[in-house]
Each structure stands twice: as structure tokens, then as C-alpha cells.
């Protein structure tokens, strides 16, 4: 809660809105304590007194009633009606939305068609029709305003509920014996509540305005009762001769609606989970670079990552996600990077092209060179040109590369044409061929699918086709086949293998599967807690691992043909990156750990082709 308030008030406009609306609320709630005139007592002799007149701070209206008193009473009424309408609309709309979203199917269809029909009418026309049917009066105006806002809530909440109802925890609740009502109330409602609050905070201002509108037309509050709309309406005839009678309520409406909307937008932003983790600032186009120390000199490798340091600055915490990683590939070479999740594999890969989200990511040291040219800190435009064309990525999550609103064929053709001079039809033919290469069944018809019409495995294959579209020199593949079936995986691996043999494609292949590494990669680097702990030729590392972590990691993965057995699990969990133990990061889980292991940095050492970061390696190198 306090985090929410800090975020909220960091937004100056929201803070201003909060102050203004709070002042207004305090004022109207204390009306009984204030020395005000009776708002409804007329005194025709004192008509149209100017503001700051004796005894009437804001003057009087056409019947000589005290404007200040009418303003405050009217504001109180308008606020009460607007807020009541918002609460009613939110309650009914959300109930409809949750109901439709949870039960789905035909119920959903019928309910939402009804909601659509209501939404098809112009807003104010619908409200007018409802008041016309019910007759004028403040209560009926309230009902009308609530009614026209119900569809908005129903629609929003239904959308959220549909997403939640498909989540596994709802199934789990059913298996735990909960009934539908209980699931709606205890499983779904707490999760949609923040959305309801956001929707309310952004609409209550408009509802106050709408009620005022109806009153202005004489359909809301009836004389002599004052609300902001009826005050404006009554002042209309004297607008030219005595403008203050219109300006006073008009200004109040403006203040209320503005302050509530500013505050509402602030609340929406502060509750947005994307903003909660980082600062309120926009993400940068490329990763922030603040390098300390010297930049390592160029080498003759195709792609070289040199002593890379990437950190995440989250609040006071400083996560060293990549802590001095060096890797290199030559044309036609495939380098495997293996490690558990959180070991820094993805961040290493993303740092190369400045794709780590900033904030919170910062590259604090090292270099990443493509043909000797340092990419770290390179301008966005030059990185963009190299991306896809020279260095392509295949991501773990294919949705990050595919646009949801375009057909996959269009996106592939677009990617091809952005770096090649091809006609539309040629690009399409090439797109179909690429889809065939990655084993999309019936590529000719699938080329016109939208991403959401494909299964996860199929989308991943499209992502791979995108990466191959422009025949890059280097592919950085981050767990590209983890979500795929074995037969498809085998095809993709052999496709990548062909490409590197035929075209000299260099591959950095991130995975946690030793089988894949063994089949595809010439060399392998093992990562733990942001560092490489062992690197060497695949065969040598797998046959006789030198680092205790590598050895135990291999042992705990079941292998086909090994039969039924107990697995040798590694006890404990990987360390937290902002609180690494001194010395070897693996020491808390290592059975060989000695006192020396827990003191001082342990270097990666050994002959050039096989290095290990351990004081007591499993074998001599």
C-alpha cells in the first residue's frame, strides 16, 4: 500500500488532483459546521448580488439565494449522486462481466450481445431515453447514468475474467470441491477487484459530469434543490448580464472532473504492474551502458562477448545477472550455453544487441564485438540494421517477435523485404518456403494465419523462420526448442546444423538440455550465478566434467535408455544474485566445499580450450 502511494504521488498531476479533490471533499463534508445561509431561502430584494458582497462571499442568484451555500450543497449532492452512480454501475457491470466471463459459452454470448446493443446507442441519448421513460428527478437521473455505464464495466471485467477463468487455479479450486458461487467470490473477485477500482477511478469524473448534464436539462434535481447541473441551468438565462452565477458552478464542475480524472489516471498507472517494477520512465530503445574500466581490445572472431557485466538496479537491490562473461564464435561454429534458469544465459544473449530492458538493466563493463566492431553502446540505428540481417535472435517466447495483428506470412515477407529487394509475390514464395523449412504443416494455407491461430509450438517455428529469413551470419538462439516436441526439435536442430555446415552460420545455442548440446554444439559453456564455471569442447565436458556443478547437473538429468531409477538431485537452490556468498557461488551446494572456496574470487583457469572455475576440480586439465 505504501509502495502504491509513493508511486501515485511521484506523479505530480495525480498528486495535484488528489489535493484538489481532497480539499473539496473536506469542505462539503463539513457543511453542517460552516456558518452558511440556508441554500433554499429566497430573498428577491437581494437578487444577483456580485461576489464579495456583504454577507454573501460568492454573491446571490436570481432568487437572491446565497451562492456559496448553494454551491457547497450542490457540490455535495453532485458528488454523492455521481459516486453512487459509479458504485452501482461498477457493481452491476462487474457482476455481469464476471458471470459472463466465468460461465462462457452460450451464457456469455447472449449477455455480451445485449451489452453490445446497449453500447451501440449514443451515450447521452440512451440516458435521455431512460429519464424520459422514468420521468424527471434526481433518483431517475442517477439510475440513467448508472445504466449507461454498466456496459463499460461489463465489457472490461468480462475480458479480465475470461483470462482468469482459463487459469489453472480455477480448475484446482473445482477439484478442491468448491462450487461455482464460491469460486466466483473467493477465487475470481479478489483478482478482478483492482481492475474494477481502476475502471471506477477513471469513470467517476465523467459520471458526475453526466449527472450534471441531465440536471442542466432539467431532468435531474428539481427546484429548489441545488446541484451543480441545475445551478448552471438556472443561471443560463442570466449568463450575459450576471456571468458570475454561471461561472461559479461551472468552475466547480471543472475542478471536480479534472482533479478526479488526473487522480484516476494516476491510480491506473500506479496499479499497472509494468510500472511497479521499474521507474515511471519509459523503457529506452537500447540498454543503458555505463562502463567502468577499459574496453577489451578487438579479436578476430566473428562474434565475441568479452568480460561482459550486466546488472539490474531494482530499488536498492543490485542484481549482478552477468558477471564477467566471455564467449566467442567463429563462422560455422556452434557454441552451447547451458545453465539453470536465472543463471544469466538470456541476459548475456540480450546484452549483445542492447536488448536488455532499461531500466532496470545496465551494462557496466565489457564488450560485444561483431567482426571486431563493438556493439555495446552503438547507436540504435546501427544496431537495428544489424539485427535480423547479420545477427538474428530466436527467443524463448515467440510472441515477443510476432505482432498479434498481422498474418504470419505478411510479417515474414516484411522481414525479408526490409533487407532484400524482392517483389511481394517473391517474398511470399520465400515465406512459404521458410515455413516449410521449419516444418509447419500445410505451409501454403498456414501462411495466412494470425499468430493467435497457431499453437505455441507452431508459433515458435514461425519465430525460427523469421530469424532465418535474412540469412544472418550469427544466430543467438535462446532455448528455441524447449517448448517443442521431440520430432519437431530434431528437425529444427538438423536444419540449424545444415545451415552452419553449408553456409557457415555461427550459432550461440542457449539451452538446459545436455542431449541437445551434445548433438549440435562443438563447444559448451556452463553458467552458474552469472558466471561461466566451465568451458570446453562438448565431448570433453560431457564425458569428464571438471567442475562439480557440471558433474552434478549432468547426473541429475535422466537420459533415455537409463531405465527406471532414483535421480541424483542437487540439494538447495541457486543463490540470490544481489547477495552472493564470497568466493565460489556454488559452495553452499557443493559437497567438496572447503574453507578456501569461500574466500576471494576464483578465476576461470586451465588450458585455453578447456577452463574451469574451481579450486578442487573433478579432474586435472
Amino acid at each position, binding site marked *: 500500500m505504501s509502495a502504491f502511494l509513493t508511486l501515485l504521488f511521484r506523479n505530480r498531476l495525480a498528486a495535484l488532483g488528489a489535493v484538489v479533490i481532497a480539499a473539496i471533499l473536506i469542505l462539503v463534508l463539513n457543511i453542517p459546521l460552516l456558518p452558511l445561509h440556508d441554500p433554499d431561502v429566497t430573498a428577491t430584494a437581494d437578487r444577483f448580488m456580485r461576489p464579495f458582497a456583504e454577507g454573501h462571499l460568492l454573491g446571490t442568484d436570481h432568487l437572491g439565494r446565497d451562492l456559496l451555500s448553494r454551491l457547497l450543497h450542490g457540490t455535495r449532492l453532485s458528488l454523492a449522486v455521481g459516486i453512487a452512480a459509479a458504485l452501482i454501475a461498477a457493481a452491476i457491470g462487474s457482476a455481469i462481466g464476471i458471470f459472463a466471463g466465468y460461465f462462457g459459452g452460450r451464457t456469455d454470448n447472449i449477455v455480451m450481445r445485449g451489452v453490445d446493443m446497449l453500447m451501440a446507442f449514443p451515450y447521452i441519448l440512451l440516458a435521455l431515453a431512460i429519464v424520459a421513460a422514468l420521468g424527471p428527478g434526481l433518483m431517475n437521473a442517477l439510475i440513467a447514468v448508472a445504466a449507461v455505464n454498466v456496459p463499460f464495466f461489463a465489457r472490461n471485467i468480462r475480458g479480465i475474467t475470461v483470462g482468469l477463468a482459463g*487459469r*489453472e*487455479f480455477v*480448475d*484446482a479450486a*473445482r*477439484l*478442491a*470441491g*468448491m462450487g461455482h458461487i464460491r469460486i466466483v467470490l*473467493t*477465487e475470481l473477485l*479478489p*483478482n478482478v477487484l483492482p481492475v474494477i477500482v481502476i475502471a471506477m477511478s477513471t469513470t467517476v469524473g465523467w459520471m458526475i459530469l453526466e449527472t450534471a448534464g441531465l440536471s442542466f436539462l432539467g431532468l435531474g434535481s428539481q427546484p429548489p434543490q441545488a446541484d451543480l447541473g441545475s445551478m448552471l441551468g438556472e443561471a443560463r438565462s442570466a449568463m450575459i448580464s450576471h456571468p458570475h452565477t454561471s461561472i461559479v458552478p461551472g468552475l466547480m464542475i471543472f475542478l471536480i472532473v479534472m482533479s478526479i480524472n488526473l487522480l484516476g489516471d494516476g491510480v491506473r498507472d500506479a496499479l499497472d504492474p509494468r510500472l511497479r517494477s521499474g521507474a515511471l520512465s519509459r523503457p529506452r530503445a537500447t540498454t543503458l551502458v555505463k562502463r567502468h574500466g577499459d574496453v577489451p581490445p578487438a579479436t578476430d572472431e566473428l562474434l565475441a562477448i568479452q568480460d561482459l557485466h550486466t546488472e539490474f538496479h531494482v530499488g536498492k537491490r543490485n542484481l549482478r545477472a552477468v558477471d564477467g562473461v566471455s564467449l566467442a564464435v567463429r563462422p560455422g561454429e556452434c557454441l552451447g550455453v547451458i545453465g*539453470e*534458469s536465472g543463471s544469466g544465459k538470456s541476459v548475456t544473449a540480450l546484452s549483445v544487441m542492447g536488448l536488455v530492458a532499461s531500466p532496470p538493466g545496465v551494462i557496466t563493463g565489457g564488450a560485444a564485438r561483431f567482426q571486431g566492431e563493438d556493439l555495446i553502446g552503438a547507436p540504435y540505428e546501427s544496431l537495428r540494421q544489424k539485427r535480423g540481417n547479420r545477427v538474428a535472435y530466436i527467443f524463448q517466447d515467440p510472441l515477443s517477435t510476432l505482432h498479434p495483428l498481422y498474418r504470419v506470412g505478411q510479417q515474414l515477407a516484411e522481414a525479408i523485404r526490409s533487407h532484400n529487394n524482392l517483389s511481394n509475390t517473391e517474398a511470399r514464395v520465400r515465406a512459404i518456403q521458410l515455413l*516449410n523449412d521449419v*516444418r509447419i*504443416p*500445410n505451409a501454403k494455407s498456414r501462411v495466412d494465419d494470425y499468430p493467435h491461430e497457431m*499453437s*505455441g*509450438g507452431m508459433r515458435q517455428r514461425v519465430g525460427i523462420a523469421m530469424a532465418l529469413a535474412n540469412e544472418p551470419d550469427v544466430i543467438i538462439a535462446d532455448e528455441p526448442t524447449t517448448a517443442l*516436441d*521431440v*520430432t*519437431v*526439435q*530434431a*528437425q529444427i*536442430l*538438423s536444419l540449424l546444423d545444415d545451415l552452419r555446415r553449408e553456409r557457415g552460420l555461427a550459432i550461440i545455442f542457449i539451452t*538446459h*538440455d*545436455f*542431449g*541437445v548440446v*551434445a*548433438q*549440435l554444439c562443438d563447444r559448451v559453456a556452463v553458467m552458474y550465478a552469472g558466471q561461466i564455471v566451465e568451458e570446453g569442447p562438448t565431448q570433453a565436458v*560431457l564425458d569428464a566434467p571438471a567442475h562439480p556443478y557440471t558433474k*552434478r*547437473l549432468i547426473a*541429475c*538429468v*535422466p*537420459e*533415455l*535408455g*537409463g*531405465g*527406471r*531409477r*532414483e*535421480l*541424483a*538431485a*542437487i*540439494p538447495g*537452490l541457486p543463490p540470490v544474485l544481489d547477495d552472493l556468498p564470497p568466493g565460489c557461488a556454488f559452495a553452499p551446494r557443493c559437497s567438496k566445499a572447503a574453507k578456501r572456496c569461500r574466500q576471494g574470487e576464483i578465476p576461470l583457469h586451465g588450458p585455453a580450450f578447456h577452463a574451469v572455475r574451481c579450486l578442487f576440480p573433478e579432474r586435472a586439465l
Partner: protein
Amino acid sequence: MPALKVEHLAKTYPQKRPLFGAAPPGVRAVRPMSFQVETGETLGVVGESGCGKSTLARMLVGLLEPTEGTIEVEGKALGTADPSEFGKLIQYVFQDPQSSLNPRKTIRQVMEAPLKRLHGMAKPARKRRIAEIFASVNLREEFLDRYPHEFSGGQAQRIGIARALAASPRIIILDEPVSALDVSVQAQVLNLLADLKTRFGLTYLFITHDLAVVEAVSERIVVLYFGAVVEIGRADRIFASPRHPYTGLLAESAPVVGRSLKAPEQKGIELPDPLNPPSGCAFAGRCPRATDLCRTREPELKQMGEDQLAACHYPLEN
């Protein structure tokens, strides 16, 4: 008496009716299948995405109503699709441990639900039972008052297993229980599952796409393809000496240290389309042994040697 007996269980998802004309035939996600699981056994179920694994699992726990067929638990037929009736006999462990926990409920609330709703336990009894279960899955009791986001994947999956145990079921359906976990944690969870099985005399149905994992944990394995059982056999033999060409393809495709990479399949072969299913053997489009007989007549599951069954007109010889 088998712990679980499934006969002619099938599920057809209806398709949307077009504006004019008759409704198209539905998608046959699970074709009529029969198998049984003995008490204390782990039956592995493997197959590629979309082959009907999760549909089968959801029918078994009553989250989905079968189109036809029966499910019997310890000789008792489960008639209606009422999850709370199923819940006491069969429980489910989900693939994604985080998404199977409500982000706004404490772990204690999660654990209490089955005890209260399925077994009507009073508060002190629930407290004791939760302590017992938490001890058996190696979780500390202080976790009970925390929220799901505070846990790592491995811990969250232990909580998921603890919740399934709370219902005191006879059978647990494990739907890809370790696919979302890291390898070092995966081994911890697999060992825990094995331990719980002997301790509580449970029966498992272990669904996965990982051949090595399924081989390491199961007694027998069922191979699914395109919604149908194509082969059943002993875990220690089925991948070493498969009879169905599809099982053979799976075993060859699995990446294994020390085996060189080769494309086990030609490019350009056709995968079966669920909206337009082929007649005859669904694997015929990919099978090097396919003949006209395969393309016209659907092969039936037949005994092939001792405790191995396969559905193929021209089974592999071993």
C-alpha cells in the same frame, strides 16, 4: 482390481455451427481408448502436443465431460462430471505451478480448501493435517502464510503436490509436473513423487513429452498419437524395442548424449489435420512403411509379444 480402469473413453469437441447448414463434425481430441492402471503403478503417457494428453487428463479428474466411455476407480464407476466427487479419489498436479495457485490467496487458504470442502474437517484437524502433509513434502510450515509469488518454481510445485495430497486421493494425475522446472529441481521433485507414492500407496498417471523422464519414473508407458493409443508396453523396453513406427520415431528423435544428429524424417511430409482427419492410420502420412491398407483401414491395438500392444498393420520387428 485395478486402481483405474478406462473403457472406450473419448472426447469430441463440437465445432462452431456455421450460419447456414449443419454443424461440421467435431474435433476428435481423444478417440475411444481403454487402458487400466494397477494399484501402486506409475503409468506414463507420452505424445506430442495436441495428441490429447491434457484432454484425457481433464476427463479423468472430472473437469471435462467425456463424450463416451466410462471411468472406474477401484471398481467404482464415476458417473457424473462432478469434480468434488472425483476430487476425493483422483487429484491433479498441474504443469505450471505458479498459475495453479491463486495469486491473492495465502498457501494456507489454498491448502484448507480441499480439507474443508471435500472432507468437512474442523479447524484443529485441518491444522494437524496440513502440518503432516507439509512435513511429507519437505516444506516449512512458515510458508503457509505467504503468497504464491514468493516461491520459486520448485517450491510452488511442491505446494501443488501438497494440495493434491490434502484431498487424500487414491490416484494422482501428474500433467507435465516437472516440465516447467529447472533440471536440478526437477530431480528433487521426481524423487519426492517416488517417495510419496510408496509412503501413501498412491497410483500415478504421469503425462509428459519428455521420454527420458517418463522412462525413469514409469512401470508401463502409453504412447498417444493423434488422440489414439498407438502402443502400450513396459517402460524399460518400449523405447528400446518399439513395435509401432511412431514410437520408433520418438525414440530416435530424442536428443541423447553420444548419438549424432540426424534428421529422422524427410522434409515435406504431411502431418494429420484434426479438422480433416485422414482415413485409416493417422500416422500413414509420415510412415515409411505405409501401404494402401494403412491408408484405408485403421489398425487396431493388438498384442505384440509379451505385455506389449501396438496398433499397426506392419509393426517393426525386433
